[in-house]
Every structure is written in structure tokens, then in C-alpha cells.
């Protein structure tokens, strides 16, 4: 049986309402016991009015701290103790993210003659609540209150129901009681926000302007939110999206699930950052290799082969290694690279380097997650390590990523030159969830490679095409919106299908060679009729990704497409 403690506080004039409320809770218990829930009402009014000693106050604070839900009722005045009860509860809530507090103001007719100066306590208190940013609700009668509270209970009780289910993913684990002993300060995101804002301020005008105009931003809750938005929007698309997740988890109330997801996402964010640079370098290296073949050292070649042959998603350290190899190749061969800032990262990735160390530690979180034995400190540690990685990639806030969809050519009679209309989706962290407003058109005088995710700095034409390492599955499938997927691994020892990770939820997307090959160009009629069908064009797009990957593999490693040997 799960016990939910409800603490109710009110001034003496609402004694009647409180009694009715007690009766309601008792009726609810009749219903809820089948769900394994018991609502325990804590009412302190019987001796609260005579409270004087510290001992009692402590005892009382403890009762609130132990409560899950606090309900404060007010009418024409706010008694000193009732207000204290509220502030105590509010302080505890701020510290440990619990209990949930509801304040209800009775809005019923009162006898004008009965109004005294005490009404000022009510007005004062309401004002104070407003300043605290706490929402309050009004109720007209006890029925109205019960109805409102019943709806609230209906909304939150499923959480408690689920807690008693062993198979629930987000179940609070056994040891959580110990952790809840002391108040937990919600300092999630603090380090990340401060460090990243400063790091990108030299690359991003918005962040720079914001910092110089608001030196004291950290003191103002609204400005902290704006700072977070600037960071989310500042970092190049896919990374901004990941940071958004961290900001969102950080804003949650304290829970085991929060810590777990925070740790997971710190890891993933760092990995995606490294992956993005690696994939941009691989892609550009392939261009170089096609233009002018260079020889790799054996360790460099091994690194590349390892990447192309991996049959499971690589961890963050593998990408540290890969990035090291790629940077070496670029440096050794004096190759140009659009994201030239990354060329300075090499020493920091080597043994003893700060990025390497940060990634090492982030990688260790896997074990914590596996054993479900993480603490708040682990989360804050992960946040610091992530901020080292992201600070080192702060130059990415000067870059943009877009997903090019179709290119339309528009030329009408007597036009000397036609217009190329590039349909693209701008990938912005904050708006990843929205896509309608991002689908845009850009007029150009020449085409660009379609169905590709590209990264560029200021000049749209000077870009790196990330296909086939980063793809937009919705674009390839000729759907609206964008579904950005990072290459994960190939089923090298099986059917050679390619596995991608959808960055929103890390779910797996598989691209196989289709059984519907594009007809050859020799028979134009056959080809035209084939192309006229949307399903065929989708197959063509996905097949192209598939073949591009193996072409890149061959050009960069010299290894041909391998099929698993049947060993039986």
C-alpha cells in the first residue's frame, strides 16, 4: 500500500471546509485502496495555534517535509501560522522539489460588516505569492473545492500508482528513501549554462550582446531562461536540440528518473558533438580522397576501418579516438577543412588532455546507469565534464545545419536564367519539435545537392555535405518535417544493413538495400514511368544513402563491400 501524505493548512474560519475535505479524502480512500493507495491527511490545527517552542516548529517542518501534497486554504485573512506553514512548505519544495503545493482562496460572499484590518493580511499574502511566481486557485464553495482537488488528484495519482508497479521504467528505486533525507538543491544546468554562454559569446552575437547587457543575468530567473534559450538556439542544430533536453530535465522536480535521464543525456550530447565533427571530417576527407588520393598511416587506416566495420554503436571514447586519427590525417597532409577551429583540438584529445579526460569520465557513467547507483554528485560531475566538451566545440555556434529537400527549377518564357528554389529545413535546437515554420525556400541561381544535410558557416555554398553519415529520413522519404539520424553502425557480419540513430529519441532506423533497383538510363520510358511513382523515388533515395556509405568506405579504407561468409 502506497501512502500519500496530504498536509492541510487553513485559518480557523474555514474549519467547516476542512472537515468536509476530510470526509472527501475518506471517500477517496474507499475507492483508492483497490489501487494500492492510501491518502493520509495531516492536520495540525489542533495544536498549531499554540505553537511556541522550537521543538514543535521543527516537528512541524518535518511533517511538511514528509508530505507529498500540501493544501493551503484561505478566506478573509491569512493567519500568521497559516502563512508560515505556506512559506515552510514552499522553502522545502524549492529545496527538494516536493511536496506539491496547492493554495486555494475561497471566493465567497462575505458580510461587509465583518471585514476588519485582517483583510490586509490576505491582500499582502496574495501579492507575495505573485512575486514568488506561485499560482493560486479560487474556489466558491466546498463542493467546488472538492471538485477542483479531485481533478488534481486524478491527474497526479497515476504517478503514485505507477510507482508501485515493479515493471515501470521510471520507478523510484529502493534506495531513494535514503537520498530524500536531506533537502536537495536543484543546481542542475547552472554550470552548463554559465560556461556555455561565456564560451559561445565570442562566436555568437546574440550571446555576446546578451552577456554585455546583462552581467548579472544569473541572479534573475527570467534572464537565466533567456540565457538557456540563447544557448539552445546558438549551438548548431542537432547539438542545440540535445542541450534543450538537458535544460528540460534540469528543470524537473527531483526524482531518480531525472538523474538517470540527465546522466544519459550528458553522455549522448557529448557523443553527438564529437560525432558531428568526425562525420564532417570523414565526409570532407572523402572529397579530398576522390580528388587526390593520400596514403594513411597504418594506425590511421585501422581507425577508419574500425569505424566503417563497427557492428555496434561506438561509445564516446571510440569517437575521441576516431577524431584523433582524423585530426592527425588533416594535420599531416595539410588538408583544408571548413570547420578549421576543430584542428586545434588534437592536443586536448590526447592522453592527459582535458577533453579526453572529460569523455573518459562521461563514459564511466554507463556503469553507474547500469547499476542504477548514481547520485546527485554524479549528475553534477557529468554536467561539468559535458561542459568541457561543449566549450571546446563552442565554435559550432558559428555554424548552421540545414536539411535540403527538393530543388525546384523555375524558368518561364523570355527569362534569361531560371530560378533554383532550394527547399530546405533549418535545423534549430529549440524548434526541432516544430517544423512547419522551418520549411523554407531560398532562391539561388544554381542548384545544390538535394536530399542532404549540410553544415556551413556564413557561405551557404561553401558547405560540407554530411550524407551518408547524417541524414534526414523524412526528407529522403519525401515527407514533411525533418527526422535527423546519425549513422550508428553496420550489420557488417549479417545482411550489411545500415543502422542509424534518430537523434530525438535514439531509436534505431535501419536502411537496407532495397529490392527495387532504379532501372537503367538506357530505357527512358521504363525509367520515367518508374520515377513517376513516389514509392520508387523513396527507394531510390534510400538506396543512394546505402550505396554512398559503401562507396565512402571503399574510398577511405580500400575495403570492398563485404558479405558475411556462411560458415556452415
Amino acid at each position, binding site marked *: 500500500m502506497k501512502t500519500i501524505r496530504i498536509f492541510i493548512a487553513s485559518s480557523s474560519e474555514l474549519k467547516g471546509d476542512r472537515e468536509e475535505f476530510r470526509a472527501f479524502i475518506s471517500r477517496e480512500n474507499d475507492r483508492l485502496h483497490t489501487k494500492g493507495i492510501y491518502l493520509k491527511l495531516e492536520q495540525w490545527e489542533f495544536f498549531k495555534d499554540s505553537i511556541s517552542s522550537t521543538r514543535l516548529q521543527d516537528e512541524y517542518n518535518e511533517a511538511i517535509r514528509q508530505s507529498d501534497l500540501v493544501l493551503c486554504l484561505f478566506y478573509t485573512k491569512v493567519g500568521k501560522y497559516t502563512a508560515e506553514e505556506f512559506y515552510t512548505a514552499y522553502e522545502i519544495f524549492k529545496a527538494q522539489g516536493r511536496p506539491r503545493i496547492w493554495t486555494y482562496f475561497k471566493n465567497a460572499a462575505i458580510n461587509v460588516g465583518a471585514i476588519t484590518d485582517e483583510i490586509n493580511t490576505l491582500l499582502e499574502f496574495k501579492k507575495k505569492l505573485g512575486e514568488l511566481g506561485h499560482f493560486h486557485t479560487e474556489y466558491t464553495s466546498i463542493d467546488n473545492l472538492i471538485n477542483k482537488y479531485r481533478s488534481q488528484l486524478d491527474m497526479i495519482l497515476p504517478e503514485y500508482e505507477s510507482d*508501485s508497479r515493479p515493471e515501470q521504467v521510471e520507478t523510484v528505486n529502493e534506495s531513494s528513501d535514503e537520498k530524500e533525507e536531506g533537502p536537495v538543491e536543484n543546481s542542475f544546468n547552472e554550470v552548463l549554462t554559465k560556461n556555455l554562454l561565456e564560451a559561445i559569446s565570442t562566436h555568437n552575437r546574440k550571446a555576446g550582446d546578451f552577456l554585455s547587457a546583462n552581467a548579472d543575468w544569473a541572479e534573475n530567473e527570467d534572464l537565466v531562461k533567456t540565457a538557456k534559450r540563447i544557448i539552445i538556439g546558438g549551438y548548431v542544430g542537432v547539438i542545440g536540440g540535445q542541450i534543450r533536453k538537458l535544460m528540460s530535465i534540469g528543470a524537473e522536480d527531483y526524482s531518480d528518473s531525472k538523474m538517470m535521464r540527465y546522466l544519459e543525456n550528458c553522455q549522448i550530447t557529448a557523443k553527438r558533438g564529437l560525432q558531428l565533427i568526425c562525420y564532417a571530417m570523414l565526409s570532407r576527407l572523402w572529397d579530398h580522397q576522390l580528388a587526390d588520393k593520400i596514403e594513411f598511416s597504418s594506425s590511421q587506416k585501422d581507425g577508419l576501418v574500425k569505424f566503417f566495420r563497427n557492428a555496434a554503436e561506438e561509445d564516446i571514447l571510440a569517437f575521441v579516438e576516431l577524431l584523433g586519427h582524423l585530426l592527425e590525417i588533416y594535420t599531416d597532409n595539410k588538408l583544408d577543412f571548413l570547420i578549421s577551429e576543430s584542428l586545434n583540438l588534437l592536443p586536448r584529445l590526447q592522453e592527459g588532455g582535458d577533453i579526453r579526460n572529460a569523455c573518459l569520465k562521461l563514459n564511466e557513467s554507463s556503469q553507474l546507469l547500469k547499476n542504477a547507483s548514481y547520485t546527485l554528485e554524479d549528475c553534477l560531475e557529468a554536467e561539468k565534464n559535458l561542459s568541457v566538451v561543449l566549450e571546446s566545440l563552442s565554435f559550432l555556434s558559428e555554424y548552421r545545419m540545414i536539411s535540403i529537400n527538393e530543388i525546384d527549377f523555375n524558368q518561364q518564357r523570355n527569362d534569361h536564367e531560371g530560378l533554383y528554389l532550394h527547399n530546405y529545413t533549418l535545423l534549430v535546437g529549440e524548434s526541432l519539435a516544430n517544423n512547419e515554420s522551418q520549411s523554407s525556400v531560398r532562391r539561388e541561381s544554381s542548384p545544390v545537392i538535394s536530399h542532404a544535410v549540410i553544415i556551413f558557416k556564413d557561405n551557404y555554398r561553401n558547405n560540407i555535405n554530411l550524407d551518408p553519415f547524417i541524414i534526414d529520413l523524412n526528407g529522403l522519404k519525401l515527407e514533411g518535417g525533418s527526422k535527423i539520424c546519425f549513422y550508428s553502425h553496420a550489420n557488417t557480419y549479417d545482411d550489411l544493413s545500415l543502422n542509424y540513430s534518430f537523434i530525438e529519441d535514439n531509436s534505431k532506423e535501419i536502411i537496407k538495400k532495397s529490392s527495387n533497383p532504379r532501372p537503367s538510363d538506357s530505357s527512358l520510358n521504363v525509367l520515367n514511368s518508374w520515377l513517376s511513382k513516389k514509392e520508387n523515388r523513396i527507394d531510390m533515395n534510400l538506396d543512394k544513402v546505402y550505396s554512398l556509405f559503401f562507396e565512402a568506405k571503399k574510398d577511405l579504407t580500400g575495403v570492398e563491400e563485404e558479405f558475411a561468409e556462411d560458415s556452415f
Partner: protein
Amino acid sequence: MKKYPFKFLDSYQREDRNVFFGRDEEIKALYEMVFQSATVLVYGASGTGKTSLINCGLAGKIQRHDWLDLMIRRGSDINKSLKSVLEKAGGKVDEAFDETKYLDEWEIDTDGSGQELTPISKSIRAVYQRNFRPVYLIFDQFEELFILGSLSEQQIFIETIQGILQSGQPVKLIFSIREEYLGYLFDFERAIPQLLRKKLRVEPMNLEKVKQVIFGATAFEGSNISIKEGEEDAVAEGIFHKIKGDKKSLTIQLPFLQVFLDKLYLNITGDKKREKPAEFTSDKVNEMGEIGDILSNFLEKQVADISRELISKYPILNPGLIWKILSPFATLEGTKDPITKEELFERLPDLDQKLVNDVVEAFSNNRLLRYNENTDTYEISHDSLAKPIAERRSVEETALLEVKRLIKSQIGVSEEAREFFSEKQLIYIEPYLTKIKLSEEELKWIANSRESLKKEKQREAKQKYEDLVKSKKSMFLKVAVGVFLVIAGLFIFIAFKAQKSANDALEAGKEVTIEKNYSDELIRLLLEGKGDKYENLSEDDLKGLLEMERVAPIDSLVEIRASVSPSNTLSEGKKNYNFTFWLELPSFRKNEIKEVSYNFCKGFYDSIRTSRDQTSSFSIGYLGWGVCDTIGVDIVLENGTTIRKKFPFKEYISKRLPTE
């Protein structure tokens, strides 16, 4: 502790995702769609589980930090509800900080081509900024906007949605609508073309899905229900066929399944706490017998239980009364109609508010009624329960609702395009006007319609009179002309109240009134085609006749009349008619009658109906198909005496029933 896996009539929530079965394909499709479009439409028949699919299926697939769902129901106005839901979620807009100064060329894309955000979009931004979760605005039961909302409410809403879509805020819109109302989206789609681009139909449960639900719910670890080994398919198929009955359909309704499974469990264990383990077997399923209308039976039982529970407090309470209290919660078509307590009290003016309140509370406690805090309304927990409520309505209640709708639909049109109520409509709505509360605008429009009809009738009368002039003798003409001139405010006998001004005129002076009535009466007789017998009378004879009508005992003058006209509605499968009764007597004698009671036979909802309205000739009306052999009519005179008459209604009306 083992868990009972069924949710009964509750919709499934995010937390129930481990016991939500049978919808995997739909969840996957819906999840894909939210990444393909900012608007997604979910449609399907009532009871297919659209809300559960979104709240549990979709929500369960998205991580908590990527999902901030705000459910919006229309309430009294969808635009107000949206605003209020956003405000409650923290969408209070702080104007103090101007972020626009940090925008650059590329960010214009994300902020909607440089246009200033609408207040709602700013509010969404504020909600998002509270916790950085993408906002999902879920418009549940979206059909309510079209069934209950006005055109201007719809227009404002369309503009709001356009603003949101252009805002570049991290927000998605999911609309859930019953499929029979898809056609209403025509205008909406024209304004927002992407609305129907991504749409998902939620199919009713076929056998395959029913199996998934039953197997899933019994197989998961921790379920207190199991199926006898080897009988899995037989049990699932047995349940499916029991619910389907002899209908030819390949699918069943989800609520039926839930209620059936609950009933099966209770039959096996008898444990109302639903804690004991139960084993479903083919035999147990077969023992369930024919279920018939499961939900109807279920609701009937709840009504009986509540009646028993409250009878000691309210001795007059019986199931019939409870059904009457539930009636306003269902629309004419048997869908949910959310209403506030105040509206409920208004709809049930004869009932003690405390009693109504306690019944509502009892239904809220067992979750058959739900309270919506945002709109301060109560509604029946599931559409499938609204249907049996609508079916239990008396003919009179149904007629009341029809009248209400008729008036609402007419007034819903903007005044320039609005038509007056026709004579037939006015006759139909008249008997119910005292029983419904109308807005000032509605009352005014009814009054205007009467005025317009009166003028039209006067025109007709004049025309007939002119025709008469051409064809009748000059003696008669002289009388008629005189009479006609007196009756400037002529009011043709039709079964509805005269305008207030006519009443005022009546009160202005008895003599004047009676003189006027003389004239009225004569013209009335003439125009009704009964004037022939007066045509050849001399002026003196005419006066004599009128004198006789003036002084004869009233019971020798009174005749009972009835009329019948067809209605488009059905009840209990039979075609309905509008029946009207009134007294026929010289209009200048009407003021001697205080009230007239019509006594109906057994089977009528209100067996005695009384009219005190002399301007309508003490008419009453009803909608239905039932006819009594005879109707006792008690005419109570102002002097206290009562004249009792028997009216052979069946015989009278059988000659007058309209033929198809």
C-alpha cells in the same frame, strides 16, 4: 502486489503505458506523424480510444522531458479555454524583456518572418520557457467546436491556430475528432491546409486487436488475471463474439470490451476490490450469457445504486428522477454535453438544487461524471454512456432539446443572414418556452418573428377581405369594413401567444377589448371559411348571433380541438408527430377561463398538462407518437367552477393524421 489491469471507462494515461495493448501500429504511426507535421489529426468513431491513444500511447513513447501536453476541451468557448489552459501552465506573458534585439538574419526563420508573435504564441513561448519541453496542444473532442460553438468562435480559433503555426515556437497541435464530424473541418482546412495532411484513423477493435488487449493484460507480470492454459484463443474469441452479438460487424467498441472484462472478473471473483486473482476460462465466458446493451445495463445499475444510496435523504428520489438529472449531460444525438452546475439547475427548475447537487456528486465520486476545472463544467465520462442517457429521455425532454437547438441554430446565424421563425416553428416551440431559459437575443428574435408573422397574416387577411369585397353583398361589406377598421391589431388564431402589446391592449379597457373581440371574432369566422352561415344574415341577425355568443353559458360554447403535423424525429423507432390541443370558443369569452387542464392517459410522461394562456386559446402541445383514446379536459373558470369535458382524441385525430 498484483494489479488489476483493466481501466474500465477511464482513458489510459502515460503511466498506464505498460498495460495499454492492441494499439501498437497506431502508436507508431502517430509518433512518426508528429515529426512530419506540426498538426496531426486523430479521428475515429466514438469509443475507439482516441484520447487513450494520444495520452497513453503517444505520450508513453515520448520521454518526459520532450513532452508537455496540454489538453484543451472547448468548455464554453474554445478560445477562452486555450488561453486559460496556457495561463495555468505558466503562460503568463512577461512583456518586460525584449528578446527581439538579439535576432539576426537566420533567426528570422525561426520567429515567423519577423512578424510579432500573437498573444497566444507568446503565451506558448512562456510555457515552453518554464521547463524547455516542446508543447503539445491536444484539442480533445474537437467536434464540440462545431456542434456547440458559434461561427465567430470558430473564426477566432482558426486565426489563433494560424498564428501559432507561424510562430516558430516549439509547439505541436493534435486534434482529436469523431469521424462523423470530419466534414465540419472544411473551412478550417481551407484556412490551414496542412490540417488534414497528417491524419490517423483509429479503427474500432477487431478480433486481432481484442486478442492483443486480452493477452497483453493477462500476460504481463503482476497482472491478477490469467487465462486458462490452452484456452487463450477460445477465451478471446468467446469474449469478442459475446460482445458483438449477432451484429454483422467485424469490430466491437472498446468501452464495451472494458465493461465486459470487468463484469467477467466480478462474476468469477465477486471481489469488488478487484484484488483477488481470476482465471478466465471458456466456460466462464460462456456463462456470461447474452449481454445485450452492456453499457445501458451498467448505467442502469449505477442509477439504481445511487437512488438507493440517497433515498433516505430524499424520499422522492427514484431512478426516473436520476435519469432526468442525467439527461442534460447528453446531446440529442447521444454525445457528451458538458454543462456547469448552474446550467444544470436551470435545466431542472422543478428539482431541489440540493438533491441535484448530491446526485451530481455521487456520479462524480464513482467517476461517471467528470469535473473540468478549466471550464467549470461536468460531463459524462464517456460518449458511450451519453447514448443510453439520450435513449432514456422522455418525448417531452427530447422535444425541449429540439426546441432549444432550433432556436440556437437560428440565432447562431449572423443577424443579416438570419431568417424569422416560421409559423410552424413558432407553433412547435411555443409550449416549451416557459421551460427553457433563453437569452435576450433569442427572446427578441422570437418576438420579432411573431411580429413579422402577424404582419404577414394581416396582409393575407386584407387580401382575403379585398377578395370578399369583390364577391359579397354590400350589406355584409358594410359590416365587414367597419369591423376591419376596428381591428388594426388583428391577430389570426394560431396556437401561440400574442405579443405583449396585444396583451397590453387587452388590459387597456374591457369594453374596448370586447368590442375588438366582437370584430375579431367575426373576421375570424369569416376567414376560417365558417362565415357562410353569416353571409346572408341581416345586420340585426348578425348582432343577435353575436349577442347569443356573448351571453350563452360558456360550456355550451366551448369546443376542444386538436391538430397534428408530422415531425422528422423518431422515438422508439416510431415516427413522431407534433400534436396541439386548444379550446375553440369566442375570443371575447376567453377571459372568463382561468386555466385548462388536459388529462392524458397512462404512458405519458406528464399525465396532467395545464395552460393558463388565453392568447393561445389555452393550447398545449407534445411531440411523440402516442395517442390516448380520450382526453379529459378540465376547464376552470375564473368564478371557480370547473367544466369537465371528454375529448375523443383518438377518433378525432385518426381522420387528421397526415399521410406520407
